[in-house]
């Protein structure tokens, strides 16, 4: 049997725990299936955190390489996905830190807690305002809003509200306290809300309609 071929398409229905166990025993097909399940999400996460396609591709490769190398260190006490997200986040943050010329990438900088967030634009939205845009336009609007967030807020938002990790998992992945995750998440959500209001506010409403 050729253990190095990853092209085994019949494993899509197998549960994650079984695949991990098989992969640990050297089953390349099982590891290949794990890669296929999560590569899209890991690539998206890497793009959001690094904001750079080339770095994101490196992060994607490094994540699965490391996961494969250290598979014996995964004990199944968290989900496999959470485990590889943690690897991916570390790789992506390393890329950011390496870009030393960009002063905005420090994750340790003092940040506001979100309580003083300026709410300039308060206008109601339609029920499904995203329907007004094509899929492509919507993707661009959402991506550019995320890009405008500072890295400390962006990473928390991406993990919590896009990758849907829990507050505790996000804290663990980013090496932050739970209160820090919560305050950054609030700030990120409010900033995005404000940015999206420009596109999604109900037609005919102005900023002061509800004041």
């Amino acid at each position, binding site marked *: 049997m050729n*253990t*190095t*071929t*990853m092209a085994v398409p019949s494993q899509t229905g197998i549960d994650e725990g079984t695949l991990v166990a098989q992969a640990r025993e*050297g089953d*390349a097909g099982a*590891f*290949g299936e794990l*890669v296929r399940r999560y*590569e*899209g*999400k890991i*690539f*998206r996460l890497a793009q959001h955190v690094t904001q750079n396609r080339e770095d994101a*591709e490196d992060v*994607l*490769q490094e994540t*699965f*390489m490391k996961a*494969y*190398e250290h598979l014996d260190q995964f004990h199944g006490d968290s989900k496999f996905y959470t485990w590889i997200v943690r690897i991916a986040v570390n790789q992506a943050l390393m890329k950011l830190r390496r870009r030393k010329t960009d002063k905005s990438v420090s994750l340790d900088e003092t940040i506001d807690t*979100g*309580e003083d*967030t300026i*709410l300039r634009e*308060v*206008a*109601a*939205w339609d029920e499904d*305002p*995203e329907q007004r845009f094509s899929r492509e336009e*919507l*993707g661009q609007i*959402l991506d550019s809003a995320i890009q405008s967030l500072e890295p400390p807020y962006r990473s928390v*938002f991406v993990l919590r*509200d*896009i990758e*849907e990790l829990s*507050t505790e998992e996000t804290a663990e992945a980013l090496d932050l306290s739970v209160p820090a995750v*919560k305050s950054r*998440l*609030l700030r990120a*959500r*409010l900033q*995005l*809300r404000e940015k*999206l*209001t420009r596109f*999604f506010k109900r037609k005919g409403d102005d900023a002061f309609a*509800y*004041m």
Partner: protein
Amino acid sequence: MLTCKDFLHELSDYLDESIDTEARAKLEQHIAECPNCWVIADTTRKTIRIYKGMDPYPIPSDVEARLMKALEKKMAAKHR
């Protein structure tokens, strides 16, 4: 009496439904009386919903091909 600032402070937990019934009731009373906070809560909830509904873009085939190639090489080296 809850202020708008108190409300904003609790907004994330309120939207994530990770607060107890008593706190929730207070927040709901506040938004029933404060149109501004109602709009902020509603539009923040929609913001989160829209982002959660975003599908991962399909991974470009050249990126996937390079990933698979790199991994197969690594595996071959391990089993040699």
